[in-house]
């Protein structure tokens, strides 16, 4: 079947989609967006977290057909030039995507230029080791920081990230990254 959806601000369609396929498979294998990672395929690890109509969800648990007509934002869409997720983007004030930059392509180069504050904070805090869990954590942390004012309490960060598993770094540096991103997004008055 064909599935029509908006991904990172761009209307797109995936063809030959199997009816039991997940949104994650569509994103990675049919639309060339490998940011969301395929790890557990059962909603346990959070590595495939994406925004679906502005709400963070596990893409592996969304049937592809359920994304018909809906708006998806992946980790690729968070960097400068990527479209902010609906309902969450206004807090970031990034402005519209520059002309010529499509939401479906990488917009950040290896220098880190154009990364979102949450992404940059993960790099700066050393919250990345093997990197497999990172995209899901970045999207989920992005969603948390769109909701709260100021730097969230540790308990709130832990609660927000409870569905994202990391097996390398432990979680301390990930918490550091979220606090760092929060401080940069909303400097103290």
């Amino acid at each position: 079947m064909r599935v029509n959806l908006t991904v990172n601000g761009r209307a797109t369609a995936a063809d030959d989609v199997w009816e039991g396929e997940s949104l994650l498979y569509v994103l990675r294998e049919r639309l060339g967006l490998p940011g969301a990672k395929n790890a557990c395929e059962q909603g346990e690890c959070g590595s495939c977290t994406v925004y679906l109509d502005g709400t963070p969800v596990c893409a592996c648990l969304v049937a592809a057909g359920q994304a018909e007509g809906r708006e998806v934002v992946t980790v690729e869409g968070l960097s400068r030039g990527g479209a902010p997720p609906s309902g969450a983007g206004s807090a970031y004030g990034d402005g519209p995507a520059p002309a010529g930059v499509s939401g479906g392509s990488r917009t950040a180069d290896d220098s880190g230029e154009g990364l979102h504050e949450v992404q940059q904070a993960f790099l700066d805090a050393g919250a990345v080791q093997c990197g497999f869990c990172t995209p899901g954590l970045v999207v989920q942390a992005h969603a948390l920081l769109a909701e709260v004012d100021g730097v969230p309490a540790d308990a709130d960060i832990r609660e927000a990230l409870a569905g994202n598993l990391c097996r390398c770094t432990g979680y301390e540096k990930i918490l550091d990254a979220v606090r760092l991103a929060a401080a940069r997004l909303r400097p103290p008055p």
Partner: protein
Amino acid sequence: MDFLRPRTWAEALDLKAGRPEATPIQGGTDVMVEINLDKGRPAALLDLTPIPGLREWSREGDVVRLGAGVTYARLIGELGTRLPGLAQASRTVGSPQIRNRGTVAGNLGAASPAGDSHPPLLACGAVVEAESVRGARLIPIGEFYTGVKRNALAPDELIRAVRVPVARGPQYFSKIGTRNAMVIAVCSFSIALHAAERRVGTGVGSAAPTPRRAVAAEEFAAARLDWQGRSPLDPEVARRFGELVAGAAAPIDDVRGRAAYRTHALAVLARRALGWAWADFRADSGADSGADGDRGSA
């Protein structure tokens, strides 16, 4: 496999009547796991998410009518005062991402004995609104669970809503697991004090082939609690209540826990939950403060 996408409730009922083997899918948090891990391959998926009416809840007299598409996240955010037991249980479901998708109706459809919704639904006396092209019917929650992952729905029926009585007294949900997130209950327990009727409701999860009430414990507590004088809970009453709750269970040994541990833990959960609920009752916490408003949709 077919992917069926009704735009209206009437169309969904027609499709289900024509394809009774179709699996309804809402948040996908159970159905997609089966497909992804190749544990099952439904002949068809019936996607209920496009039907807008299912995402609404409304207050109707003494009950909240919870549409089949209302997620745990919204239940927690919008109904924590009206349905405190169910909201507490919802907070323990999976992770934020799962709670953003999963629904109480999905929990009922899957009918896993470990589902977190079931104990509070039993404790407060919920009613499942089932419908097919043949008509609608109301299934009391105590008659809904018929076996391990089996329920009372006919093959052509869909869950439209769950009617949950508004709390008229303290309610608690308690659950054993290895951490505070992403945990399938080792065992779980819910209590609801129906103060006006001087009645106690219970629900036991993950400790029998189906979720079930602990009727002997309910009757014992109702008779022994000092509803009039609101005197402190007699520790012996609490202990015996826990023992009776544990006695209502029929647990097995499995990967999540041993039967003996489940029995022991249930007695502890029940004893403590009664203590918390009774303390609230004595402090006279009016449960229906009306803070949740009267309807919601998404």
